[in-house]
């Protein structure tokens, strides 16, 4: 979030609050928009994102659903077809598997199967990631799977600006857009200009310029990667840090241009290593920047194990700044 141009009045806020303000603004801006999901209303959102919105907008527009992931996601698709602009919240990516059929076989395919007649202007938000000791069934990072599917757009806001600004752009998009919010970011504090608003959603962002190595991350791992860059800077290594922001489409042009300058890259991803989104990024660099590379592209991903409950094991399973820095050093040694 450094490097933002001087803005009118800044206010200290959190990622959670930024998402909440974005939802509220969307509800105020378009009466076709409503929020639907488990415990978004009376409970206030499982991560307290929608707290207070029920009182302001009522139960029609802040719509608590039964525990029926497939049906309420499908109902969101149908409501979008019927002229609404729904925001469907799936509590976490872990439960999204129960709705995956609707997302892959209906939301992503309808426009195509209908020969261009039926687009699905739907936004699905969900929390993702590990770090809260919630163990094997509640710690997945499966956004990479969604990034595999033609017909979807997939976003991963990692900053307050993006948490605040991606939703409006996603809602304006005529296609189904998925937004992944990393659970460890909700409490992140920072400054946001008072007039913060919609942001572009197709491009990666260089969060830290550097000349020696390109570190590519998104969502929850961005901040670990920026921390690794600080460590490296202290050693005299200037890392460029790219925040993917959009996981589908991938902004491979920004990546290739950066690697063209630095000639080295490490991809960081909280998904399990094998079949991770990081693999795709590595393969893209292979295809688009092979002749620029001075060393093999490294990957820092989660260990190939269901996430264990105890903190020391959970942390050992996840990408950490030290491992990222080490992978960067390895590309420089090569």
């Amino acid at each position: 979030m450094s490097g933002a141009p001087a803005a009118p009045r800044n206010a200290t806020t959190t990622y959670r609050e930024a998402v909440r303000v974005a939802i509220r603004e969307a509800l105020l801006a378009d009466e076709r928009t409503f929020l639907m999901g488990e415990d978004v209303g009376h409970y206030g959102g499982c991560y307290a994102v929608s707290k207070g919105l029920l009182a302001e907008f009522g139960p029609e527009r802040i719509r608590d659903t039964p525990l029926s992931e497939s049906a309420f996601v499908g109902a969101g698709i149908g409501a979008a077809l019927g002229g609404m602009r729904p925001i469907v919240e799936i509590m976490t990516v872990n439960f999204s598997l129960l709705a995956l059929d609707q997302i892959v076989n209906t939301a992503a395919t309808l426009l195509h199967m209908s020969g261009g007649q039926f687009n699905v202007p739907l936004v699905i938000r969900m929390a993702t990631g590990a770090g809260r000791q919630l163990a094997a069934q509640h710690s997945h990072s499966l956004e990479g799977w969604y990034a595999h599917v033609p017909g979807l757009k997939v976003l991963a806001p990692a900053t307050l600006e993006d948490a605040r600004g991606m939703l409006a752009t996603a809602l304006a998009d005529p296609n189904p857009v998925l937004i992944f919010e990393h659970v460890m970011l909700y409490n992140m504090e920072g400054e946001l200009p008072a007039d913060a608003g919609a942001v572009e959603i197709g491009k990666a962002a260089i969060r830290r310029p550097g000349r020696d190595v390109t570190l590519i991350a998104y969502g929850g791992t961005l901040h670990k990667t920026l921390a690794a860059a600080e460590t490296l800077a202290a050693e005299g290594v200037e890392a460029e840090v790219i925040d993917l922001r959009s996981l589908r489409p991938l902004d491979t042009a920004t990546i290739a241009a950066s690697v063209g300058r630095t000639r080295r890259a490490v991809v960081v991803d909280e998904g399990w290593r094998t079949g991770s989104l990081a693999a795709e990024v590595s393969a893209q660099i292979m295809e688009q920047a092979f002749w620029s590379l001075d060393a093999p592209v490294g990957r820092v991903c989660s260990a190939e194990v269901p996430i264990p409950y105890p903190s020391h094991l959970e942390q050992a399973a996840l990408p950490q700044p030290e491992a990222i820095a080490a992978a960067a050093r390895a590309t420089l040694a090569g």
Partner: protein
Amino acid sequence: MTGATAKKPQLTRPHLATLLRQMLRIRRFEERCAELYQQEKIRGFLHLYIGQEAVAVGVMQALAPDDAVVATYREHGHAIARGLAMPAVMAEMYGKQEGCSRGRGGSMHIFDAATRFYGGNAIVGGGLPLAVGLALADKMQGRPGVTACFFGEGAVAEGEFHESLNLAALWQLPVLFVCENNLYAMGTALRLSESETDIHRKAEGYRMPSEVVDGMDVVAVEATAQRAAAAIRAGQGPQFLECRTYRFRAHSLFDPELYRDKAEVEAWKQHGPILRFGNWLTENELLHEAEVRAIEDEVAAEVEAAVAFAEAGSWEPVEDLTKHVLLESGA
């Protein structure tokens, strides 16, 4: 479903002729499709509706233009009964770009914005949540529409059936659930798939009113659907119809039909919806043989025109392969 003033089916001669004509249009269209499949003009899966025509035709009588329809991979009948142009449907069967889905979908994915025909879904049970959402949109926007959602009795076992019925009933959404119980899901007989084979009783578990009707009797289906649609329009929430019917042909054209007796099929054919209704019409002199023949001739001509249209259609250029994946923003 009582209490609401249902539009009574009008047993006028023109209306009866319409019912027969609609069933015949589906029947002859599909018989031709089966031939075209043998000729390899149509490919992929082809699921024929033959035997079940009374259901789609009866139910559609209860729908208005602004209502919506969600169907399955066995949906030619619903599409035609709903009013899609037969040539566009046939061109879709061929995969030609003049097809109602530009040829991208084929037999299982018939779509049409003009008639609010939302497919054409090849995932068993997958259409039910969609129907719930369409009805939710109508309700939230204060529109009077009804969404009719067709599915087979096999779909009843899917979790999405349960979730969707509950959601529709809980939120009192204007959905007309129409279960076409043809006794088999591919080769699996109903008694092998449901502990409660009396399907319409399932609706009770959601406090949803339901009725069972002879799905081989187009007049009965229409009457029941009119009642149900009226109840929905009167704000009485979703309604459930179980239509007892039978598929005369194989599940798809790959099916060797090992799971049922020829005799059983023949017995059902004696109750065929067209046979029975046609006989009733002529026996009661509601329609003359000559009128029936005239309808048959018109339908035959319509089917041949549809085939000619499809034959004359064009293939979407390969260069357009990746079109229709995302809609450009602002569209």
